[in-house]
């Protein structure tokens, strides 16, 4: 299969082109090292960051629908890295598949050649590692195992919930990031705040409240021995970094550690 490398449509989202460039660039270089390529879809628009609050809203779902339809036309799965994009795209896709009213109205707006009905498969980058590459295969490709590192996976909310629609992992007791950490040769630290909210968007107007939340996250994870945390969400990263918890430890995008373990961090 030399030469014909697996290609995925890739939806980076607003923040990865900007403040979260690390999340993006390490993912791209790691993907190549693992034998697949992230092909950024042209003219993508922001997903909105939040799944529309009213089930009767259509316009706010259209940017996602266009991205989903583009991937369908390419015959490719659609990959995201950002928690929020992952959440919004999967939920809009579920609407397009299962909610007739939304499907009809969205298609009326978009006027695709062929109506879109949720055909595209949306995958988080971690799901590709787990379900396509396989963590055992990933482990074999690791050249710099992160031995001795005790890493706490911080999931936050948007990657996991609502569990039924996102179908990412067990929303209360996830293990995909822990398995990922093991594949990189490090030791995962399991702590119960790992799927509790960091405060999310409220840090814009209530930064003090967000600090309470992140302090609890650091206290809990370091209490169990974590020496750093990983996340897939630029907003979690921001909030965790803003923390002035006594127990604060470094926070990395999971792709950064992946690139490091695969030996492709430099020059990414």
């Amino acid at each position, binding site marked *: 299969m030399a030469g014909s490398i697996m290609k995925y449509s890739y939806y980076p989202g607003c923040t990865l082109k900007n403040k979260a460039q690390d999340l993006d660039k390490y993912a791209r270089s790691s993907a190549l090292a693992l034998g697949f390529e992230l092909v950024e879809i042209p003219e993508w628009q922001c997903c909105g960051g939040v799944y529309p609050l009213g089930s009767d809203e259509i316009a706010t779902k259209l940017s996602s629908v266009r991205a989903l339809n583009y991937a369908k036309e390419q015959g490719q799965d659609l990959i995201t890295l950002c928690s929020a994009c992952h959440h919004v795209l999967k939920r809009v896709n579920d609407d397009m598949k299962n909610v007739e009213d939304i499907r009809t109205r969205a298609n009326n707006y978009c006027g695709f050649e062929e109506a879109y009905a949720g055909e595209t498969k949306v995958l988080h980058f971690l799901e590709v590692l787990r379900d396509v590459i396989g963590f055992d295969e990933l482990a074999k490709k690791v050249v710099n195992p992160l031995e001795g590192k005790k890493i706490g996976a911080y999931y936050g909310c948007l990657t996991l*919930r609502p569990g039924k629609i996102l179908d990412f992992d067990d929303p209360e007791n996830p293990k995909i990031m822990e398995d990922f950490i093991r594949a990189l040769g490090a030791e995962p630290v399991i702590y119960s705040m790992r799927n509790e909210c960091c405060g999310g968007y409220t840090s814009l107007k209530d930064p003090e409240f967000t600090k309470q939340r992140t302090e609890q996250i650091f206290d809990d994870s370091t209490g169990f021995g974590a020496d750093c945390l990983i996340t897939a969400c630029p907003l979690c990263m921001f909030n965790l970094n803003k923390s002035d918890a006594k127990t604060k430890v470094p926070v990395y995008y999971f792709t950064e550690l992946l690139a490091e373990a695969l030996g492709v961090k430099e020059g990414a």
Partner: protein
Amino acid sequence: MTELEKKIELIKEISGSDPYKCMRCGKCTASCPAYSEMDIKPHQFASYIIRGDLDELVESKAAWKCLGCFACIERCPRDVQPGKLVDATRQIVARQRGGDYLQPEEVPELLTEDLPQQLLVSAFRRYRR
């Protein structure tokens, strides 16, 4: 249909959830990370809606304090999904008076060097429309 029934129907439609299913177990309120900030607690949303005390909901701080973390939605044993009722309340406010918890004018002040775009768009969608 009375005015009250119409309002309840509207909330049911926007939220896609049924407040009458609530059995007042309080698992949502127990799960809520923003509990201390909410003046009306998640489990009370269903009763406020059923009673028709929508004005109080609309005036409440709670609607703006919900983190949208989906913990209550995930754990609700009755599929009421209180978070969706909170979101519907925000929508009613936003549709009635354009959402007044975040004004565009105040944004420049709030910006910092490392503030991610995701935060801005999320806040705008949650606080406004």
